[in-house]
């Protein structure tokens, strides 16, 4: 039981909790307590330190901008206006708040507000669903499309869309890069032939990929009922992110241990069996390393691409909030930043677990 839970924890990347299990079990309490403090408490301390510094910085910026505003009112409108402005800022009135880096507390408030907003919207959605249920049944009977909710998406919906875009992009990247990588890896001449192209396309910026995809998709898909922005952004994400997998796959396939290939030769495996029974299993660890990099790159470029492609998602959320310029917009942007970071971290952990699952102990084969 104990060993099993330790194994699971390590597998999902929560290995720092291991000493806690030993402590509960009553094993070498002192030693494990030190280990736990090192593994789990030190990161927490650093997070608190970060929040403290952030808070101090935000306060300094806030005061600096408040002073500027008061000073401006004084030089432009006189002493009375300056006093009014000071009172206004102190009262917390929305119209005269300094617009700067929000403090951690404000970000937390924005987070609560976003959550509340999500609850409101989902309530509205379900109300709408109930309202149109009868009509939709009728429409379906007549062979018409049902009426769908077209209101503003909530923050959580945006996250969902972003995840969908990344998933689509990742699948596309995998479907393109792994087979091509295998083919290129198997043949020296193909590898030489494609090497330059790969090296040239690899560093191209996500923005350029987006424009390129836009040019093509705009021409290919003329039907206005199809959601082009989703297609464009997912394809761009896929194209940006696939290079790591492509390079890793071809490297993995081309560097399969010669001993394994000799076994295949002696057994006279045909080419299909050689690929599926020897080459692919031997290069799986490297392929999955590539896929893991692909996921993190995909998530990173997604925000920029969504921002430009006007496709719904976290990227456009950030952009809209920035354009919006409301009192809590800055705080919402920072909430989005943390959400993006945390989701990226979780995705990476998931891929790491999959990678560990696929890796065999090569060193002592």
């Amino acid at each position: 039981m104990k060993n099993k839970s330790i194994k699971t924890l390590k597998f999902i990347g929560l290995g720092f909790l291991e000493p806690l299990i030993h402590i509960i079990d009553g094993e070498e309490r002192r030693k494990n307590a030190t280990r736990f403090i090192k593994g789990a408490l030190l990161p927490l301390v650093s997070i608190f330190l970060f929040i403290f510094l952030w808070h101090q910085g935000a306060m300094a910026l806030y005061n600096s901008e408040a002073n500027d505003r008061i000073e401006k009112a004084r030089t432009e409108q006189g002493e009375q206006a300056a006093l009014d402005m000071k009172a206004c800022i102190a009262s917390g009135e929305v119209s005269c708040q300094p617009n700067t880096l929000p403090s951690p507390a404000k970000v937390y408030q924005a987070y609560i507000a976003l959550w509340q907003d999500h609850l409101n919207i989902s309530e509205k959605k379900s109300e709408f669903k109930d309202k149109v249920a009868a009509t939709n049944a009728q429409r379906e009977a007549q062979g018409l499309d049902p009426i769908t909710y077209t209101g503003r998406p909530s923050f959580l919906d945006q996250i969902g869309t972003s995840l969908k875009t990344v998933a689509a992009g990742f699948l596309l990247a995998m479907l393109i890069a792994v087979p091509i990588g295998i083919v290129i890896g198997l043949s020296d001449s193909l590898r030489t032939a494609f090497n330059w192209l790969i090296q040239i396309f690899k560093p191209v910026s996500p923005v350029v990929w987006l424009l390129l995809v836009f040019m093509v998709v705009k021409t290919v898909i003329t039907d206005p009922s199809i959601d082009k922005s989703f297609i464009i952004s997912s394809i761009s994400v896929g194209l940006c992110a696939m290079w790591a997998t492509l390079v890793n796959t071809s490297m993995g396939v081309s560097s399969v241990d010669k001993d394994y290939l000799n076994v295949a030769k002696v057994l006279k495996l045909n080419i299909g069996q050689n690929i599926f029974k020897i080459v692919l299993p031997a290069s799986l660890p490297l392929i999955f390393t590539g896929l893991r990099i692909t996921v993190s790159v995909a998530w990173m470029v997604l925000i920029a691409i969504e921002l430009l492609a006007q496709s719904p998602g976290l990227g456009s959320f950030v952009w809209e909030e920035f354009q919006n310029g409301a009192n809590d917009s800055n705080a919402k942007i920072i909430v989005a930043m943390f959400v993006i970071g945390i989701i990226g971290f979780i995705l990476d952990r998931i891929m790491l677990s999959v990678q560990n699952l696929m890796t065999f102990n090569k060193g002592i084969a």
Partner: protein
Amino acid sequence: MGLLELKNVSKTFGQGINKNEVLSDINLSVEDGEFVAIVGFSGSGKTTLINLINGLLFPDNGEVLLNGAPITGPGPDRGMIFQNYSLLPWLSVYSNVKLAVDEVFRKLSKKEKDAHIRKYIDMVNLTPAVDKKPSELSGGMRQRVSVARTLAINPSILLMDEPLSALDALTRGTLQQEILKIWNHEKKTVILITNDVDEGILMADRIIPLTPGPKATLGPEFKVTIERPRDVTQLNQNPEYKRLRNDILEYLIDVGATRKQVSDQKYILPELKPVMPGRVVFGSRRKKEAVKYF
């Protein structure tokens, strides 16, 4: 005519200045059911020789004949036991053997294959470890898997490339006995490459030394007439064993010594004069200048 014949075989690697004539003028004939050991120094081209026989390499000159026909490539008729086991680390013991059996006995039913695989795993005493991965096994156990995999495809010739050289002395002894037992039982033709003369005498019918490379060739053969089964402890008292061991070692040391003489080139070193700090002589003007270092 033997089952396997090598006629005037030579093999060269590289070209130009990197040219390395590894083997030259190799002649060998192996009879059906014979156990031949090829003994040589490390780096003399033993692995190259066995790769010529298993078909992973082709000779530059001469020919390698199996049943009178030249070898066109590797094949399961020549079972190969590699020095570094060459097990697939992502497959279990069972699956490693199964990979070979699936390939060679395609017509067998699933049940027959299973029985076949288990029989050979049992033969090398690995039944308790049948579902383990190679990384969970010791070196000796891994080599046993390799032996089972090779025997399971029922080759007509068994090629062993220093199969036991990476193992400790105890495991080595047990595996030697096991291989001999299996050989006695299956009566296959075996070519064993080794750097251990004692191993050769213990196991083989004939011992052929390979002279040190480059241009390695086979030396005179030594027939081992000691009666089987040979026991290691009794072997040490056997006068025939002592004589044979001395002869072979003497021969190997002799050829080793001649190799040394051959490669005893004179190296002409460039004449160097030390540069004294503080006295640097400049080109044509030959003006002495003091250089301050500190």
